[in-house]
């Protein structure tokens, strides 16, 4: 199936731990994103990569570090997790050139920090 996939779907961890979320898209898109959706369902962009190059880095604590080994993958590593990091994290991709930046989202990773 062509899609954006994320692992894990659920992540429960203790404060202070380090964790990673993986994302892969097989749509052949050039641009990938990480979004955070809070408890009020507000979707806020965190990072954007185009062909493995960082192009958007919103005001996000430097405990969050994205890594793009190739244009089909964009992983998110979080150090020293805090209670406020609890949220649903979505990976998305969009094609480059033409179009209007339509986003294709993954199923989300629900992160709970205890």
């Amino acid at each position, binding site marked *: 199936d062509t899609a954006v996939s994320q692992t894990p779907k659920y992540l429960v961890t203790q404060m202070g731990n380090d964790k990673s979320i993986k994302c892969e898209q097989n749509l052949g898109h050039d641009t990938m994103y990480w979004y955070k959706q809070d408890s009020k369902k507000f979707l806020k962009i965190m990072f*954007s990569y185009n062909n493995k190059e960082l192009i958007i880095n919103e005001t996000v604590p430097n405990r969050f570090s994205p890594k793009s080994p190739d244009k089909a993958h964009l992983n998110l590593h979080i150090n020293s997790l805090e209670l406020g990091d609890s949220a649903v994290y979505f990976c998305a991709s969009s094609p*480059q050139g033409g179009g*209007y930046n339509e986003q294709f989202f993954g199923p989300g990773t629900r992160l709970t920090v205890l």
Partner: protein
Amino acid sequence: TQLLEQSPQFLSIQEGENLTVYCNSSSVFSSLQWYRQEPGEGPVLLVTVVTGGEVKKLKRLTFQFGDARKDSSLHITAAQTGDTGLYLCAGGRSGSARQLTFGSGTQLTVLP
């Protein structure tokens, strides 16, 4: 600061009723997209509108982009339980490093 405000925030209606959801901004956008998100899933694109005054129909859903490209509406006719979900509008600007600004969302519940 929320650049795109959606109203209402919550809407609960009976099956068969009509409804309209609004997406408003003081900023001009080059395009406006609508997404629907179901529980436990990511948002899915419904439509993109790009011209001021443009109207697009998707079965029972009608989308309109305001003449000044600052606002949009989504009208659902004869709502069905399958329409239940979180509706998100998202504005795009040309030359803005491919970034969308998402609205605050409208949670729609259609009761049988």
